[in-house]
Structure formats: C-alpha cells, structure tokens
C-alpha cells in the first residue's frame, strides 16, 4: 500500500460531504496536519480504543448523516468487542476505516502492536455483523471502497495498510510533554458537534 496516514485522511476529507468524523491516534495527527478544523470532527484522545463507540453513539443519534471513524489497529484491539457492539446495533450510516500500521506510538517509539502481522480484522468485522468489510491494497481501491461506503446503508469496514515515520524518541529527544489541550479537546469538540448539529 503506497498511502500513508495523511494521504488516507486527505482523501477522506475530500470525499466526506457533511459527514461527522471521529479520529484517533495516527489519524488524529494526520487530520491535524491537514489543518482540518471542521466543527463536525472529534478526536478521541486521550482515550485509546474509544473511537468506534464514540462514532456509534453519533451514528445512532444522527442517522441522517454519515459517521466516519478513523481508527488504529492497537486502538481497535483494545476494544475489539466493539465490532460486535457496532454490528449488533446496526447503524445505517457508519463507516469504520482502520489505519493499520502494526505499531503503537507511531513516529515516537514504533512499538509493535500485538498481532502486528496476520490479524484478519476484515473477517472479524464481517463476522461481527458489519454489512461490508474490505481490505484495500491501492489508492484506487481505497477511493472506490470509501465512495461505496458513503453511498450504501449499514456499518462498513475498510482496512488500509499505512506505514510510519522513524521513531523520534531517543537520546537526543528523550521525552515529549502532553499539552493541556490534549486532555480537553475531546470534550470541547463533542460540544461543538452538538451545537453545530442543533443549529443545522
């Protein structure tokens, strides 16, 4: 797969229409790098594993809009049963994109995720009740899968392999500090979404 996380998110941004977007981990960084400040975006942070369920709640509350969740493989593993929760709740407007890079702390420490190779997330999503589930091996396949997902009814799963940057933490950069905003942005963004939807 020749796409990186930023490209995956940039393509989604161009195709989203009025969809709500939930992102986390690498996808969150990618949307930030794109300068995306849409009032319909929320970053699930610092709450690893929560993106799909946050998206499920939004999808159930607002069935008239697509909800797109950009998840990470380690994040999905933390709440793997969430695939079943989504499948059983059967939202009609749910698009779950998995950016699978096989590591945690991508670009910082690049630590291998459990099952970094060979875990069949696509089959798991299908078995959990998603209405469609595909793995994309090219940009063209990803664009087509996303377009189809945004047009069809149900809970749709799309996996894309993305790479990661070399680790930055090391002897010359021994630590990184979290900003205050990292702890408050999720609540602020959820409130912004609520107000935006009320006003629409």
């Amino acid at each position, binding site marked *: 797969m020749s796409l990186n996380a930023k490209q995956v998110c940039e393509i989604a941004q161009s195709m989203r229409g009025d969809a709500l977007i939930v992102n986390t981990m690498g996808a969150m960084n990618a949307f930030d790098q794109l300068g995306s400040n849409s009032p319909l975006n929320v970053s699930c942070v610092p*709450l690893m*594993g929560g993106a799909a*369920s946050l998206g499920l709640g939004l*999808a159930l509350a607002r069935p008239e809009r697509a909800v797109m969740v950009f998840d990470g493989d380690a994040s999905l593993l933390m709440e793997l049963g969430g695939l079943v929760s989504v499948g059983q709740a059967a939202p009609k407007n749910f698009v779950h994109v998995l950016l699978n890079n096989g590591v945690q702390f991508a670009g910082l420490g690049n630590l291998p995720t459990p099952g970094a190779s060979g875990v069949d997330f696509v089959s798991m999503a299908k078995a959990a009740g998603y209405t469609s589930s595909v793995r994309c091996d090219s940009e063209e396949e990803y664009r087509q899968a996303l377009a189809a997902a945004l047009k069809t009814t149900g809970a749709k799963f799309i996996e894309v392999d993305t790479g990661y940057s070399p680790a930055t933490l090391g002897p010359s950069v021994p630590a990184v500090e979290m900003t205050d905003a990292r702890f*408050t942005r*999720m*609540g602020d963004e959820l409130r912004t979404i*609520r107000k935006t939807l009320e006003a629409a």
Partner: protein
Amino acid sequence: MTIDHTKYCVPASAFLEAFERCGIEYVTTVPDMLQIALHSALEKPGSKIRSINCSTEDQAVETAAGLYAGGKKVAILVQNQGFFAAINSVRALGLDGRIPLFMVMGQFGREWSNLGQDPRSSKRLMVRMLEPLLETLDIPYWRLESPDDVKNIELACDAAYQGSRPTALIVGHFVGFDASSVD
C-alpha cells in the same frame, strides 16, 4: 436469610417513568444482575427507550458520549464492577471532557444482612469501596435504597446534564419486577 424485598426493591416502572420525565431516549449498558427487571422492561416491544448492549462498560460510556454529542439524553446502566472497569473512559469523557454521564450502577455482591444499613459497612469490598471511589473522583452520587428514594433517579440525572459531569445513582438492591412483567 429471608427478607421482605419490597422494602428495598424499586420497581422497574419507577425507573422508566423517571427516565421518560428526564427525556432519556437511550440506555447504553453491559447488563447488571441487580437491574435485570429494568433491562427486561426496556427490551419489551413498545419500549420508548432504546437499549444499546455493549460488550464492555468502556463502550457503554463512550457510546453514551457520542449520543450526547448527537443531541440525545442517555442513562448508562452498569454494575459496580463495570464502573470500576470503565474508570478511564469516565475520566476522559466525563471528568476531563465535562460530558454529562448519568450512570446507574448496581451494588452487585451486597450481602442481604447489609440491606437497610450503611453500604460502606458491607463485608464485600466491591460494595464498600464504591462510594469512597466516587468521592475520590469527585463524582456526586445518590443512593437508591428503597422506594422512598425514587426521587433520587431524577436528581442524579438532572445533576449530570445541568452540571455537565458524571453522576451516579447507586442501586442498592435488585430492581423490582412489576406485576405486568409476568408473562
């Protein structure tokens, strides 16, 4: 030990009436043994409240937050143990995020000899640690120890939405089955 359960059980209908007065449209849950009567009532055809069954309590909290952002009011039904398991999600969304989280949590494991007494004096750690833990997290709570406490259902719910914070309604004994629930 034989007890008169009617002294301690709040019927499911009282919950449903209070939820409807509060405008609750959804429940997110990993089912709680003490709340089986309420869960069953919510699953009946014609229920005005949709129950979303999740596979973990973290998901129940997160889905509730998403529903809130979408404009809905939600009750989160879990067990005391389930709350313990979901603390990080409550911390992220409710405490740091200041999202309303109205949590109804059953005191699973409470010995019957403790009914009518202070739950903090229960022999069972999972029971007696709940209130101190909520206080440590600065989460206000209301006890539901008998039908006399029914008003606390709305008080706990209103406090969550007006204060934009997590609150807990602590269900001290099994929710009662209504006569109409008998098939």
